[in-house]
């Protein structure tokens, strides 16, 4: 498969595919961060996570339309407003879902999978009824279009760079919140020992609700970023949910660093293979590799040593 390319061509291809992979990496990381909080920390299998992401994407789309009609001068910066709105919308829906559904199921993790699958069906149909079955795309402000010419054969798209910078910021923020803020300490305490955490005066129900809301909110931001690289349809979230779960499981469910490392390796493998093979075979080989590695090392790449 390498036969027809010279060494410098191959270098350029690898660099370009590497950057294409980095955008996929950003979406994976943002999706997986939310899921790592919900699944890794709380043990809830949220099959509707993709739909929370799509909610963020639709909010971004609506904001872009609204800004264009109401305040065109704001358009270059609308994306930041949209992201905040997406976070709030997805987070609020997440807290509602936690209150209505998830809190009854903490002791039955497999059942959360089934219930949230039902929820994802409802959300998909709701999107279809409200926004129509056709995919929608947002218009990017001018400064995000185009690309940087790094060398004659390597181009780096600006929106991709922007998404990546954003991803890094959010990752740092999440790491800060979870590991250094007092609220993060409460979250981890509740995860490790719910009863004891309650006994020392932590309001475990409230912590659960906000944790779930945070995870869903990050999914909303992922949706916002997603609008820049693809169009949004009612069932677009479903395409990503299995990949995202694999990212989280592959990285080691409770490890934030593992999640990022696995998102990186998976997205890079996939986008590099995509150039040399057909898209579907690239995906098959990537997924098969992950499944094979998980069979040898079920705890994932980076796992905390715990006794069950």
């Amino acid at each position, binding site marked *: 498969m390498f036969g027809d390319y010279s060494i410098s061509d191959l270098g350029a291809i690898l660099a370009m595919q590497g950057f294409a992979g980095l955008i996929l990496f950003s979406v994976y990381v943002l999706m997986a961060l939310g899921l790592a909080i919900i699944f890794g920390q709380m*043990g809830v*299998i949220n099959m509707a996570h993709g739909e929370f992401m799509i909610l963020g994407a639709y909010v971004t789309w609506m904001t872009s339309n609204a800004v264009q009609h109401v305040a065109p001068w704001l358009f270059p910066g609308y994306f930041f407003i949209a992201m905040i709105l997406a976070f709030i919308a997805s987070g609020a829906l997440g807290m509602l879902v936690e209150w209505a*559904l998830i809190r*009854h*199921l903490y002791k*039955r*993790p*497999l*059942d959360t*999978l*089934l*219930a949230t*699958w*039902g*929820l*994802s*069906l*409802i959300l*998909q*149909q*709701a999107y*279809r*009824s409200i926004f129509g079955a056709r995919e929608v795309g947002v218009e990017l402000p001018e400064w995000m279009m185009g690309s940087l010419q790094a060398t004659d054969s390597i181009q780096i798209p600006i929106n991709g760079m922007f998404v990546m910078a954003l991803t890094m910021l959010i990752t740092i923020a999440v790491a800060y919140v979870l590991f250094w803020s007092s609220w993060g300490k409460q979250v981890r305490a509740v995860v490790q020992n719910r009863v004891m955490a309650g006994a020392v005066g932590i309001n475990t129900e409230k912590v659960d609700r906000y944790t779930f809301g945070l995870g869903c909110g990050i999914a909303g931001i992922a949706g916002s970023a997603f609008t820049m690289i693809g169009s949004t349809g009612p069932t677009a979230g*479903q395409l990503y949910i*299995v990949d995202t*779960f*694999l990212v989280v*499981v592959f990285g080691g469910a409770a490890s934030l660093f593992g999640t990022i490392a696995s998102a990186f390796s998976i997205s890079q493998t996939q986008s590099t293979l995509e150039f040399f093979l*057909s898209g*579907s*075979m690239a*995906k*098959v080989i990537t*997924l*098969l590799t*992950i*499944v094979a590695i*998980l*069979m*040898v090392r*079920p705890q994932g790449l980076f796992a905390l040593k715990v006794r069950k």
Partner: protein
Amino acid sequence: MVINSRFFNRSELLGFLALAALLLVILPLSLDIFRLNLVAKYLTYAFVGIGLVLCWGYGGILSLGQGVFFGLGGYCMAMYLKLEASSVANTKIQSTPGIPDFMDWNQLTSLPFFWKPFHSFPVTLLAILLVPAFFALIIGAAMFKRRVGGVYFAIITQAIAAILTILIVGQQGYTGGINGITDLRTLHGWDIRTDHAKFILYFVEVVLLFGCIVAAQFIRLTKLGRILVAMREQEDRVRFSGYSVANFKIFAFCAAAVFAAIGGAMFTLEVGFMSPSFVGIVPSIEMVIYTAVGGRMSIFGAVWGALLVNFAKTSLSESFPQLWLFGLGALFIAVVLAFPNGLSGIWADHIQPRIDRLFASRKSKSAAGMIADGAPAE
């Protein structure tokens, strides 16, 4: 649960007879052949459901990849039928006669090696049972020997379903791609498209279904079934008692795979085609839904669940296509939240006691009076 030395206790026997009466007498007499064929299609999911009752309800192993086995069984059958339908005489106009049409469209000039065994009917029947079992054995052995279970198993089986779908869709020349294997005509020279054939296939399927029910009931009542339940409740204690937990899990998973494959093969025969849309993540989860609605602990419940949910799906999506997904989603949430044991749980908790009371009241009037006074309506 009362240990009963008989194979079916009284209520199970009643359930068996009621189901037999419905499927063998009432439905064939009252439905036209189109509707009966639909029922036959629903019943293919009941096979998967019975497998899930064993492996999920009793063994506690939630597999979200049953569509894989359903699809493998279905594709094995479809490959045989397709080869029969693409005889040299039927495919004269192709550039390479004698190979399936989609291969010709994709510039293949000879039959791939893995298609060749499917020229023979006995090999096909064996493959329908053995290919999925072997596949399940590999997956099960790799996972359960390393003590991967619960949530992780569910996610990995789901990934396998995704992989197989992408593979089938991507390798169009070998598998028929997204359209699947279509235009199937005869089974061993017997035309499966006529109304008469559909009628006969329906009865073949019902008989097979009862065969599977009896087999599942047998597994459930032997020591094996009890170990499965014990494993679900206290895996470590079973392990410390000297049982190989992994092997029992592998067995349950393989048995479920074989049941699903039989369903898949019947599906191909009843519907006349097989496509990747019955293999992937969504159909696999829907199969779990049927089982959950029927009751994950009840073999009969799984059959009823498959019938009722699919019936609701067809009639709702015929008249209110928008409402169907809302309904399915809400049904699922409701079942998980309020009725974890599904319809059979509702039956056992609410309806069965009333029927028992009714029988009791007929036996003695005075006792009936006491019960009626003493037990207010629920």
